[in-house]
Every structure is written in structure tokens, then in C-alpha cells.
């Protein structure tokens, strides 16, 4: 492959800077006492502590999975600190905020008002745009929508937590999910009551909330009967703590006639582009259950960051006529590795699932699509459409596809399409000959390749995702 292309795909991590601030941190190591401390710091009810301990004991009996096509040195789980929170202070203005943090916000281009929210400055009613957040909160409350940090939900809505926590991803599910269940510190909680269409995308607000979530996040979203919610998870914020392991769990529950749309843009530190050193291990369990009839869960993800991604947002289609969707763009550049895909389990009758996966590998990136479609015995007239496309940029990267299909009902309809293409020098030359420079040509071709997924993203995210792809691929931006 020509030097031009190689040069164009080199890039520096734009968001890779570390902020030095004081934190409350537990010493490294994991044992019963650490879990008790986390639960105590969070002032949790007994059932939570029991659940954590149960999960911890389960985790001790499990082995770290090795089936994914990713390589990394052995993780020393006793070297990780399992609780870390910024010290709380009452602040009156941005002048009191640690200048290191402010510098970080400015580099990321976060608007001033949002900076204040992030830094925890007391809301000043004079600033209109700040009160926007308050207005959001009031608006949500008016509709009965609960949207708060997970730890707050544990305090204020223990009955919901008790009922739904672990109902989709049980604490026994897998190694990283068990670990998360034992030590998670915070995350988000959403409850949409019956018949409510959530009046806004739960996005900007989440960004503000996200400042205090830890490396073991836990998100729980419940859409009650006939409700709708669109949830956006943006991860362009700096995430470069010493602990490289991020083992999050996301559980979605859609009741009768409910729809949940969950979108992710993930751009965590991918490690040093030259040596592959460092970077986040993103080992995430995301799953949703379409619990009752006519429910729908749709996952859309754009993954451009992390050194290693291990992630399979899945749908359990229990209710008759329920629908599961998975739209994914994953980019691995330099030394990044990703093993990602989805699982669609058809249990109810007339259930439908769609899988569109676009994998892009550049540099020495390695990428695997791993997907499973299961049609169970009673899932009459179920349908699946899968499309897995890989694009290779340069000749040192790799792409693998592992589609698993298991059909136990003869009325099922399955369609599977797969393709592998590469950005060829002839395509670049053709664009060049029309006056389009190489970097623009690559981003043009890559964006064309990802179009079907980008159009599933909410507007503001689609723009962000497109920019992110450009940043991740171009040599000039850095």
C-alpha cells in the first residue's frame, strides 16, 4: 500500500490528555472489605450489598474468557483501585474550579455553561442556557420520567432497582459482568412510565451526568408499556485513568409496545499510535430484553476508540412481534483490536431482527465481527437480516467475520450478506484526479461505507460521528 495512504491514516489522539486533580480513592485490591466499603460509601440498602457479594463470589469462581480474537497482557485485578471519586466541594464560580480541569474542557470545546455543570458550579439563574438543564429536569419530572445517577436511583427507587437489576444481564452472565456487578460505582438510571413518549433525547443531560461515573458503569433503562425513549451515550470525554479496564454493563427492558433506542459514540484513548502502549480495555456487556409483545430495542454504535473492544449489544426477543436492531460502525487503527457484534435471540412469535455491521481496519488494526442469531423452537415466522461489511485500509490490518446461526423453527427466514472491500490506490487516484486530496478521499469513501449506520443516529450525533471518523483517520488533524 502506498505511503500516501499510510500517512493519511496516522493520527494523534486529539482528546488524550490527563487532568491532575485530587480524588478520593480506595487502595488497590479486591476483596469482601473493598466491596463492603463501596456499598457503605454509597450508603446502599442491604439487598445491594448482598447482590454485590454474591456477584463477587461468583466472579471468583469464573475464568477470564479467551475466545475473543484479541491479545492483551494478563490483567492484575488486585492492582486496580475499585473506587475513585473527585473530591466534592461547593463552588460559586468557574474561578474556583481547578484550572487543569478547565483546560481540559476547553481542549474538548465544551461550551462554558456546560463546563459549569460538569465542574459542579452552583447553577446561577442569570444564565439562560444553564437553566436549560433545569428546565429539562422539570420537563422530565412533569412526564414522570426518572433520569438520574444509578446511585441516586438506589436511594430513591429501590423497588425498581430490586425488580430489574440483573434481570437482563444476571450476575452470573460472564466474567466481566460479574466483576461489574460486584464493584460498579455508578451509571445512569432511566424509567419511562406507561404511555409516555420521552419528550427529549436523553443526551446533553447525560453528558453532564457522566462526569462522575466510574470505570465500572452500570446503566439500567426501563421503558414501561407503550413508552418511547432515545438514549445517547457519548464518550468523547477524556478517559485516561491509570486503570485501563472499563467493564460496563447496560441493561434495557422494553415492556409491551415500548421502544428503546440506544446510541453510542465511543472514542476512548486507543493507546499510543506508534507503539500500541496504553489505551482502554473496553469490555462491555450490553443487552436488552423485549419482554412483551410489540416491543422494540434498537442499538446503534460508533466505536472508534479504546485499545481493545469486547462488546456485543444484544436483544432477547421474548415478546411476540418484538423487534431487535443492531447498527454498528467500528474502526480500528494503528494497534487497536476489536471483537464486536451482536446476539439476537428470537423466542417470541413473529419476531424480527436486523443486523448491519460495518468494520473498518487501518494501520495494524485487527477487527472481528462476531454475531449470533438464534431462532428458538416457538419463534414461528421469525425473520433475521444480517449484513456484515468489512473495509480494509492498507495491507497490515486484518478483518474476520464469525456469524453463528442457530435455527430451531422451520418457519424462520434468514438472510445473511457479507462483503470485504479495501480502499484501493486506484480509488484514491481517481479522487485525486478529480481534485480531491487523499485525506478527503479516504473520509469520503469511509463515510459512504458507514452511511447506513450513521443515518440511524440522532442528528447531532451523526455529525459528531462523521467528524470522529475523520479525526480518527486523518493525519493532518491532531
Amino acid at each position, binding site marked *: 500500500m*502506498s505511503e500516501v495512504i499510510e500517512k493519511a491514516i496516522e493520527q494523534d489522539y486529539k482528546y488524550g490528555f490527563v487532568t491532575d486533580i485530587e480524588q478520593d480513592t480506595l487502595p488497590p485490591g479486591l476483596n469482601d472489605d473493598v466491596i463492603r466499603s463501596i456499598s457503605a460509601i454509597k450508603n446502599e440498602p442491604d439487598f445491594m450489598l448482598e447482590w454485590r457479594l454474591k456477584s463477587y463470589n461468583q466472579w471468583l469462581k469464573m475464568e477470564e474468557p479467551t475466545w475473543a480474537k484479541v491479545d492483551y497482557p494478563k490483567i492484575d485485578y488486585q492492582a486496580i483501585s475499585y473506587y475513585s471519586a473527585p473530591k466534592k466541594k461547593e463552588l460559586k464560580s468557574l474561578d474556583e474550579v481547578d484550572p487543569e480541569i478547565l483546560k481540559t474542557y476547553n481542549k474538548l470545546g465544551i461550551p462554558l455553561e456546560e463546563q459549569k455543570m460538569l465542574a459542579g458550579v452552583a447553577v446561577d439563574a442569570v444564565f439562560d442556557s444553564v437553566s436549560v438543564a433545569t428546565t429539562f429536569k422539570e420537563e422530565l419530572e412533569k412526564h414522570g420520567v426518572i433520569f438520574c445517577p444509578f446511585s441516586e436511583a438506589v436511594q430513591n427507587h429501590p423497588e425498581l432497582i430490586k425488580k430489574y437489576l440483573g434481570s437482563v444481564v444476571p450476575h452470573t452472565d460472564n466474567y466481566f459482568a460479574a466483576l461489574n456487578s460486584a464493584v460498579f460505582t455508578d451509571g445512569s438510571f432511566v424509567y419511562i412510565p406507561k404511555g409516555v413518549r420521552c419528550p427529549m433525547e436523553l443526551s446533553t443531560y447525560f453528558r453532564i451526568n457522566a462526569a462522575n461515573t466510574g470505570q465500572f458503569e452500570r446503566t439500567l433503562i426501563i421503558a414501561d408499556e407503550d413508552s418511547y425513549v432515545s438514549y445517547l451515550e457519548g464518550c468523547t470525554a477524556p478517559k485516561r485513568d491509570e486503570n485501563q479496564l472499563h467493564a460496563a454493563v447496560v441493561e434495557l427492558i422494553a415492556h409491551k409496545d415500548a421502544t428503546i433506542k440506544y446510541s453510542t459514540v465511543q472514542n476512548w484513548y486507543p493507546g499510543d499510535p506508534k507503539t500500541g502502549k496504553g489505551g482502554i480495555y473496553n469490555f462491555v456487556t450490553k443487552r436488552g430484553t423485549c419482554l412483551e409483545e410489540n416491543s422494540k430495542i434498537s442499538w446503534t454504535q460508533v466505536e472508534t476508540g479504546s485499545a481493545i473492544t469486547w462488546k456485543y449489544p444484544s436483544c432477547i426477543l421474548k415478546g411476540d412481534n418484538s423487534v431487535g436492531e443492531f447498527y454498528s460502525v467500528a474502526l480500528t487503527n494503528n494497534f487497536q483490536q476489536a471483537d464486536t457484534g451482536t446476539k439476537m435471540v428470537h423466542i417470541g412469535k413473529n419476531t424480527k431482527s436486523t443486523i448491519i455491521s460495518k468494520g473498518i481496519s487501518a494501520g495494524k488494526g485487527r477487527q472481528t465481527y462476531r454475531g449470533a442469531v438464534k431462532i428458538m423452537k416457538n419463534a414461528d415466522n421469525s425473520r433475521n437480516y444480517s449484513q456484515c461489511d468489512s473495509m480494509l485500509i492498507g495491507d497490515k490490518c486484518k478483518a474476520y467475520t464469525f456469524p453463528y446461526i442457530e435455527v430451531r423453527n422451520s418457519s424462520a427466514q434468514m438472510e445473511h450478506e457479507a462483503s470485504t472491500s479495501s480502499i484501493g490506490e486506484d480509488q484514491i487516484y*481517481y479522487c*485525486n*484526479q478529480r*481534485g480531491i486530496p487523499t485525506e478527503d478521499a479516504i473520509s469520503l469513501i469511509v463515510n459512504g461505507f458507514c452511511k447506513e449506520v450513521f443515518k440511524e443516529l440522532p442528528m447531532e450525533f451523526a455529525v459528531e460521528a462523521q467528524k470522529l471518523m475523520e479525526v480518527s483517520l486523518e493525519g493532518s488533524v491532531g
Partner: protein
Amino acid sequence: MLEIKNLYVRIKKKEIIKGVDLTINAGELHALMGRNGSGKSTLAHVITGKDGYEIEGDILFNGESILDKTPEERALDGIFMSFQYPVVIPGVKNIYFLKAALNARRKYKGEAELDAMDFLTLIKAKIKQVGMDESYLSRAVNDGFSGGEKKLNEILQLLTLEPTFAILDETDSGLDIDAMKVIANGINEYRNGDRAIFAITHYQRLLDYMKPDMVHVMINGKIVKTGDIELVHELEAKGYSWLEN
């Protein structure tokens, strides 16, 4: 406009072009004929700046050497090539590609870039000129196009980008008579006193429509004969062998 001076070109030590001198002035149409493998397409790619050639001699465009320029710089300076094998770019809409190309050019010339609406108005007029259906605009670049459609799409790009110098690399190959007429019309629309065309072809028919000012014959990396349209007719009747040695 274009001056080729004592040009030698090698690919991996193999000499393909062995001393070519050629001058094409504004307003002229030059045809280059010759057998397959005689070096015609190589000459075209060397002018547009494709990678991978070892070059001696010089190529001047508007009096300035272009050998150190990148393909996109040459393109922005006004050199265009209609590809013999237009490249497929899956997923990228034709209209989006054309807009990116035109705006790159406008930006280079210091003109304001066209927004989506203005571009749509412009491109709808252009696509009418080549008689293509508007639906081609929303299809991916050359993806699933027939041979003739691909060539028409090249002419659409020619008319949209309005370069000053156009190389047509076997634009007439694989076309039926009707398609050839449409393409010839498109090319004649493009022609004017400020522009020049360098047409590589095997056939008399397209040249009958376009009336070249000069016809060159290339054999084994050299231009061995230059004449007018009469030379084309002679070649049609006698073939190339009488020009060898």
C-alpha cells in the same frame, strides 16, 4: 498549453515511452492512436501524475513543469482525464462525489463553494446535456453502471468540472453507435477556443464526429507519424504494420 519534451518513462526498469515530444495548444484537439500496449495510456497517466513511474524529460502545463506536482494539484490546475476504466466507489453517491470535486476546484480558485441547492440546480442542467437519467446522481459512483454508463458519467464530470485540458483515454471503447454520438456531442459541447483535448482512441468513428486538428500514431513508445484526419482513414484501411520500422 501542454508541452511534452523528450519524455522517457520506465515502469520497473522496463522502458515504455521512448522519447516523445508533443505540443498541444489551446483550442486544439489532438488524437493519439496506436496498438494496445504501445504506451498511450501510460502517457496519459504520466500527464495526470499517477504514482509508480520513472520519468526523464519534462512536461509543461501553461509553461510550468508539472512533474513535481501531485495528481490533485494537476487536476486543480485544469488537467482532467476521462478514465479508460472508471473506478467504482461503493457507498459514495455520484452527486456527492461531483460536489466534492467541484467544490475542491472552486476553493482552489478562490471562489465560494456551492451549497447543496445551488449544486443541484447546476448538476441537473449538466446531466441533461449528456442525456443521463437523474437517478444516476443518487447512485454510488460507477457502481453497477454498464460500460457505456460509466463513460457517460466521465463526460458528465468533464462538463461539470470544466477543466482546460481534457485527456480522453479510450472514451469511445465499448460504446454502441448511439452512445458514441451522445458522448461526441458532450465533448463538442465542452470544446472551445480556451480548451484543449487529447483523445486516445482506436477508432475512426469518434474522430469523424469530433474533427481532430492533429492525429499522432504511437508505436512502441514513440510517436512515429503525425498527420490530419486523412491519416485516420489510412490507418483504418491499412492497419499499423506499414508504420513499423
